[in-house]
């Protein structure tokens, strides 16, 4: 029964080496960025305000799974024009999509480069894009039935 005790610290060391920081630390930084830049309007649990701020709970996964939806989540003005760096936005979004869920199958983490590319093309008018994606989401749900 000694082996797990030896392996656990090793796993931690390799985990830290792979991502640069420990997973807990990354999640904490993402939470701090969410608190300082998002939750004033989206609220701590992402529920937002009906009619003013969209409810993100259970929504980010389905959005990320749609063609153009993954891009939309970063191209919305609140994300794109925030004062966070591209690396911070990537860390925040990877944390937030998982937290709001449900996770789509085969979700791949946003990379800093992808975020930089998407932010350069931020949505001046997100409303119509959102409406189109919501319609596609409803259609996908009907087909799945």
């Amino acid at each position, binding site marked *: 029964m000694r082996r797990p005790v030896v392996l656990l610290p090793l796993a931690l060391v390799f985990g830290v080496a792979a991502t640069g920081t420990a997973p807990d630390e990354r999640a904490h930084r993402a*939470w*701090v960025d969410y*608190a*300082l*830049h*998002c*939750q*004033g*309007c989206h*609220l*701590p*649990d992402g529920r937002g*305000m009906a009619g*003013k*701020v969209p409810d993100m709970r259970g929504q980010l996964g389905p959005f990320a799974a749609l063609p153009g939806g993954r891009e939309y989540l970063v191209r919305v003005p609140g994300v794109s024009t*925030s*004062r966070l760096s591209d690396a911070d936005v990537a860390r925040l979004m990877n944390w937030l999509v998982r937290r709001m869920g449900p996770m789509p199958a085969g979700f791949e983490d946003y990379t800093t480069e992808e975020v930089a590319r998407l932010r350069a093309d931020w949505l001046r008018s997100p409303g119509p894009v959102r409406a189109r994606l919501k319609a596609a989401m409803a259609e996908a749900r009907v087909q799945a039935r």
Partner: protein
Amino acid sequence: MRRLDRAAEYLARSAARGTSRRGFIGRLGAFLTVSGAATLLPVARARAERAPNPVQVQEQGDPMSCEYWRYCAVDGFLCSCCGGSASSCPPGTEPSPITWVGTCRNPVDGRNYIISYNDCCGKSACGRCNCSRDEGATPTYQPTTSNDLDWCLGTQAGVAYHCSTSVVLGPAD
């Protein structure tokens, strides 16, 4: 009288025969557990969840003074001078669910904490303990970190601003 006596004895004996005392204890335990757990069910807790949960931190200073550490970026009347506290609204007012969020350094442990500046709304301006330290506040065209906005626009109580709270959400470091 005797008939009453006999009826009572019969009922007592049949109850004793028909029930198990251990079973009763078991059911009583289950009842206590379930009734305890039922109050934890998410029934009508929407209001309770709206106000951010205050975090306990080591404290120093006077919450009725503008110099108090949590007020580093406040702009308005301090709720602790208006019948509320640094983290709760006075009676008769409603906390704005939307808010702006910043950080302040706690002099006791030297750590930075995330502070949510929730406005209390629904009554006219309190007028006591005006405090405008504005550290780190941005112009209103960067609204997520602007303290010049009336955040009461997000409440059901209307936009009447009464005072400001400074709620600690957690460590920022």
